[in-house]
């Protein structure tokens, strides 16, 4: 599955499966609900329904403002829409909240590079 970026036809790499947004049961319930909304958003984004996906991610980060993956995917969705400034803002929040998450450093780095390319264009 690839998601096309309208401006320039760039493609984004396939994203990790939704199961990664699971949170431990011991954590506040908001986090679970937020993770579920993030999963829904990912599904919508993968279907190319970018606007609907943004709404889900926005809700996800509203419930859990520390939801780094929500910000990461918001950045991704805004890249798809070609608004790299917005993408950069959300990516900055993703960096804050995913800094200690294992396996995210390289993904964040790659997304940051994509955003930078978009901003430089």
């Amino acid at each position, binding site marked *: 599955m690839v998601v096309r970026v309208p401006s320039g036809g760039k493609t984004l790499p396939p994203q990790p499966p939704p199961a990664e947004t699971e949170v431990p049961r011991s954590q506040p*319930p908001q986090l679970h609900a937020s993770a579920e909304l993030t999963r829904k958003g990912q599904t919508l984004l993968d279907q190319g329904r970018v606007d609907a996906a943004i*709404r889900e991610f926005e809700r996800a*980060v509203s419930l859990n*403002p520390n939801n780094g993956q929500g910000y990461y995917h918001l950045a991704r969705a805004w890249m798809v829409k070609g608004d790299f400034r*917005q993408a950069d803002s959300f990516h*900055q929040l993703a960096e804050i909240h995913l800094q200690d998450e294992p396996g995210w450093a390289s993904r964040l780095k790659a997304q940051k590079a994509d955003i930078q390319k978009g901003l430089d264009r």
Partner: protein
Amino acid sequence: MNQLSKPRRLIRRLLRVFSYGCIASAIAVAVYGVWLYERIETRFSGQRWQLPSKIYSDVTLLYPGLSINRRLLLDQLARLEYRAVKQKPERSGEMRAGETRIDLFLHALKTPDRERAAFPVVIHLDRDRIASIRRSDNGEALSLLEIEPEEIDLFFGPEREKRRLVSIDQVPPHLIQAVLTAEDNRYFSHHGIDFRGILRAAFANLRHGEIRQGGSTITQQLAKNYFLTPERTFTRKLRELMIALILELRYDKRTILEIYFNEIYLGQKGSISVNGVGEASWFYFGKPVEELSLPEAATIAALIRGPNAYSPYLNPERCERRRRHLLDKMYEETVIGKTEWQAAREAAVEPVGYEVFAKRAPYFVDFLSQQLTELYSPEALASLGLSIYTTLDAQLQQAAEAALTNGLERLEKDRPELTADGGSRLQGAVVVLQPRSGAVLAMVGGRDYGESQFNRVTQARRQAGSTFKPFVYLSGLDQLSPISVLPNTPATYTVDGKDWQPRNFSETHRRAYRLREALAQSINRSTVHLAMAVGVDQIVDTAAAFGFSTPLPPYPSLALGAVDVIPIELARAYGVFAAGGIQAEPLTIRDVLGGEGEPLERRDIQLKHVLPPAKAYLMTSLLESVIQEGTGKGVRSWGIRFPVAGKTGTTNNYRDAWFVGYTPDLLMLVWVGFDDGASIGASGAQAALPIWAELARAVPHRFAGLEFVAPPGIVRKSVCLRDTEGASIWPCQEIREEVFLEGKVPDDAGILPGAGALIQRLLKGLTGEKEKR
């Protein structure tokens, strides 16, 4: 021979005049008919009704584990027209609330990005926490449940009519039959005018010596309601007849009936008229027209003759008699069978009840309207039937209104001088934002909208007082750290030729404070020393980046908040600290849909970088100390244990009391004061903070109790905090883990690399040197 007699000539002349008169009248009638035809065509070919645009709150999300305020939730469900029933809910819109569970048959949900059919659920409660949510039809456990948005206001035109349009296919046959039986049982046989009906009505009226029946057909009633004024004159009656004939000529029977069903006046909800069977069905029975039973349909049909005289709300007995009379007539005319008739006659018809329409969240709606009028004219908003979906949290709004009212009443009770005769009324304002999205979740611009529509959240300009101090401290963070020492010595500054000596709110003998402590305790002198060391122009530049639209005068007193701010702008500025250095524009509108549900407008979160995330976090960390050990520690006495950062503010002579407090979830600002600037005699901690705390406690669904997350660029280090009075020969009095910006970790003396010049300037403060400006 060709000479006619005088009488014959007169007769011929009269005949000629009469003929001309007839021709002229026929032409006039024909011209008038064409004009009417054009008018009807124009009215019916375009938009037939002025449909008010509706403003909706946001969707409410429920999920297992969520702490709720049961009263707020039940109030919200009541406003959404869920009606309490004793048995298990079996129809959409029914609810049964118990101690440990809420049974709810949801309404269908339709929002810009969602469509869901109605279904029953049971919400199990463990005290004030949702234990589980299950569909009660198939037992499926739900991890998320969306409660539909609440209608919070309508943009009415001058008519103040409310209607829900229905197509004739949606109207159940028994409602059509009931209406025709009541109003025009030969509707499908006549051509707009029913002469038999007129004769029958005239005979009946003569027999009873009073007006008992009207001879107007449904088409005539439509002509009268839709095109004409209510006066009773012969010419108006003629026009009504002509319009009825034209309508019948131009439209088929079902179309006319559909227009009639949507047009007809069927009751009054406060100052708003209920028009059309679609709206009436919800108003009286809380359900869509398709679901009306025969007795309910008969009740609505019975209303047409006198919506208020036969209202089940106003005159239930008369309503009952008229309904039975109509059912009898339907049976006599073999419209319904005997079994149906008997069952319908005996059935109890209970209206669902209603709340008189009142503006909800009126200040929020006003603020939203300003933004909407940039997109749509007031006429368009009053007629196009737009659906405007907003960010408002209906439960939070209700709680904010209550907290403000309670807080102001408490103050007035404790300080009777605040209610002195002849003085203006104590006022307050509350705004709740989501820092990372800018979503405005609640807004209360004053204590009584009916009394004053001035929105103190968005229109007031009030002195910021100590709530401005964080921008002073932020300006010093490149050269100072939380453990840097700030003097507390008296100093005199010359401003425009006049001496100014800042004084502390409560005097102490300490000569210095550490930066964290000085902000937490809101020490005025230390703050001014810091401001003078950093430079007032630098502070103005720092604050300007936060988007204040009010002027920032570059005087030393700026350090203590001698600057007017608009409360929502102050809230937005604090939002930057809460949101990792990013500023979100206040957002109220999410989506606007057209009358047919087509998307017209969409607003997304708009972010702007203002601060490096690490600096924003450091400010949050400093502001957490305000709550933990400073002027905001009263928050803890309200039983609030989750992490909160914030700042109190009090202006000269107690004119303004502020509290701005935030968590990673929410930012809430409270202001209290008099519009005319009179003293309230109470500080921000005394007047505004309790309102904040009461509100925070009332909305557990909004607080997850999350920690503030430190971003990259923050270093934690244990430091030795020696006596600030300079007695460095003493051992550590306190070892504390402190947060620092990366690369700005101070040495053991608390001095940052490269901060020498600033430290020198600050030390001047310890000697009490006089500065000029």
